[in-house]
């Protein structure tokens, strides 16, 4: 999670997150594929105008999900139930209802992904966590612990890669995926635990207490534009839902 220099990245992370979660709730309540499509297009427009997205970036990010989209759509559409048959061949049985359902579910998935991407592609991880501290009263003990934990992810990746090569050289054959998971996980966990213990000591040695009695370098604020963004987006989405329903 990194911030880009877009307008969206200047918003308060918590507000951005909550707003988008609310839009996702609306998406869940909607059953008409036309409305779902419209709400998804709103997300694309926001991304391209306020989120600093470019078309190539968008395509690269959404391409894997487009494959999902086709798969979900086909599964729902071709094997669904319904009265008004449109096309039938062998096992495949496409009806008006199943077509609707397939489109709706697939578009809903795309909508979720795009609204989520709007948050993750424009928010700095540290700012997000600090915003949770200030706006949601998250305890610093958890906040700084989480941040320290995020540093482990790339470390785990390189360690896992090395373990896999080591096993390859030794001629280890993966017979049972559960067994090989245990084999890889155990050394990773032991190293992880040892490392986190060391980090905890280093943090305490630098005077970290975990209480709220501290000052802050980053203090994400709530400003007027957060309210405007939240309000406007929700109004637009609800309007679409209501207008297209009629």
């Amino acid at each position: 999670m990194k911030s880009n220099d877009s307008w969206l990245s200047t918003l308060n992370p918590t507000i951005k997150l909550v707003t988008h979660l609310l839009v996702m709730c609306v998406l869940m309540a909607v059953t008409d594929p036309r409305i779902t499509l419209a709400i998804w297009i709103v997300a694309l427009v926001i991304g391209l105008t306020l989120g600093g997205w470019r078309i190539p970036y968008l395509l690269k990010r959404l391409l894997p999900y487009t494959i999902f989209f086709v798969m979900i759509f086909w599964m729902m559409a071709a094997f669904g139930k319904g009265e008004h048959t449109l096309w039938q061949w062998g096992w495949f049985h496409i009806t008006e209802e199943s077509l609707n359902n397939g489109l709706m579910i697939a578009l809903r998935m795309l909508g979720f992904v795009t609204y989520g991407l709007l948050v993750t592609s424009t928010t700095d991880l540290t700012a997000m966590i600090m915003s949770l501290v200030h706006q949601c009263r998250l305890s610093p003990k958890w906040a700084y612990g989480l941040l320290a934990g995020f540093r482990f992810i790339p470390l785990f990746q390189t360690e896992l890669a090395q373990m896999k090569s080591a096993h390859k050289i030794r001629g280890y054959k993966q017979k049972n995926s559960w067994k090989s998971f245990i084999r890889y996980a155990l050394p990773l966990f032991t190293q992880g635990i040892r490392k986190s213990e060391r980090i905890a000591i280093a943090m305490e040695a630098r005077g970290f207490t975990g209480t709220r009695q501290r000052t802050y370098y980053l203090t994400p604020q709530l400003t007027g534009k957060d309210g405007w963004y939240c309000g406007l987006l929700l109004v637009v989405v609800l309007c679409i839902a209501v207008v297209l329903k009629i």
Partner: protein
Amino acid sequence: MESLLECKDLSVRFYNREANVLNGIDLSISRGEKVLILGPSGSGKSTLLSVLSGIIPEHVEAEVEGEIRLAPQCGVMFQDPDSQFCMLHVDEEIAFSLENRLIPRAQMDAMIEAVMKQVGLDIDGHTPIETLSGGMKQRLALACLLALEPEVLFFDEPTAQLDPVSRKEIFQLLHELADQHGQTMVFVEHTLDGCIQWMDRVILMNAQGSMIAQGEPAEMIQRYRAEMQEAGIWQPKLFPYTWDDVQDHPSHPLAQRLQQTLQQRRASALDADQEGKGGSAVIVTEQLDIGYRQKSVMRDMNIRIPSGEWVAIVGANGSGKSTFLKSLIRLERIRSGQLYFQDILLKKWSDRDLYEQAGFVFQNPELQFVTDTVFDEIAFGGRQRNWSEEEVHARTVKLLQEFGLESYQDQHPFTLSLGQKRRLSVATMLLFDQSLLLLDEPTFGQDARTSAELIKRLQQRQAQGTTIVMVTHDMDLVDEYANRVIVFDQGKVIYNGAPYHLFTHPESIGHHAIIAPLHYQLMKPEKERSII
């Protein structure tokens, strides 16, 4: 002088152990003093540091007896650069120290800038920490400590994970800091070069956690040489002598010793030159291009590694040494060009045959262990290939003996000491009497004794005909053992030949990251003098 830290009759015991880690330590450290604590591993030197810095018993539980007086504000720097940070960016990390001290936000920017300047961290404040090199990370760690405005700075092997060039820089930085601000510093180290000459006092501990002696560095080095060797401490190459002395007086004992070494190297280099380049090659590359994903790291490599040689690969961090080593046995993909292993194209080898011919020793041994006991660890490859149990047993026992691990054969590999783990990781790669052994920084972070033991085993293997290719930063190792050294720099091979010629003509590659061993440095003024 005013005493800042003090302990009287200090004993420490961890709750999960029966014996004391520290026994009856009396110590007093005054303001502005630089103290170095030495001792074998397990002598409790890190524990002593933790007690003096207040980590024990406040953050780590232990039974502590005796009188202790601590400094009100102190900072501790640890050995692993990666496990002392909790934030993602440089400025946030330094700010973390300030936040803990309740410094108002308005003052933070100036203070962050000041400490970054002080430690020579000349980068943008919003740089992600993960992109920094080990040396830069330790600079950042120091900046974070200085932001605490500590009265005493503690260092727990701060350079153990660094290459020699970064180590030298960090020590230089600490030395300047000590001089300018009269900072009190307490060190635990096992490398003496770079720090011993500016210490005020050396404290020597024994394996039982008692203090043997303390005194002036020069006196301690001379009087307790044997104890220090036993403890695996890297002996200083120069100290207690100074370079000017050695350089100006050819009769100086150290100067004579260095001259002698130099003569030996010259003689063996001449021998090697005369022998010529006969024999078969284990590895031949033609226009090889390696790297990961879209990025190529090394281009257009034409290298020939004759069998039976000991080859060292050197170069700055990130110059592609490890990638090259991995490419040699297909752990990393080749981007273009040809690579022949024993005269057959690498891609034509089956995994099974290839790894019977070549072994790879990783930098971190723990990540390469695959079984639960030392014995099974070595026997693994044989059992995978359905050898008879007698043959597995015979070969394994032989290797256990060769690497001095027979009394640990039923232990879990993780419970071994650092040096034993390293030896085990090499032994596991020799079950098939592999003709090629690749090692990624095998002596990295090891003390003098364990690395000497490892080198001895490798030498025996080379004498039996094994080709050894290793990545290293240690130029003394290169000089003493390697037949060939290959220097990587900015995507190219800039030197491939005998170490002697590299060290005697370092200017030929214009590479400043290579510090030639001491005896070669003696040569330079000699030449200049003869010109005059």
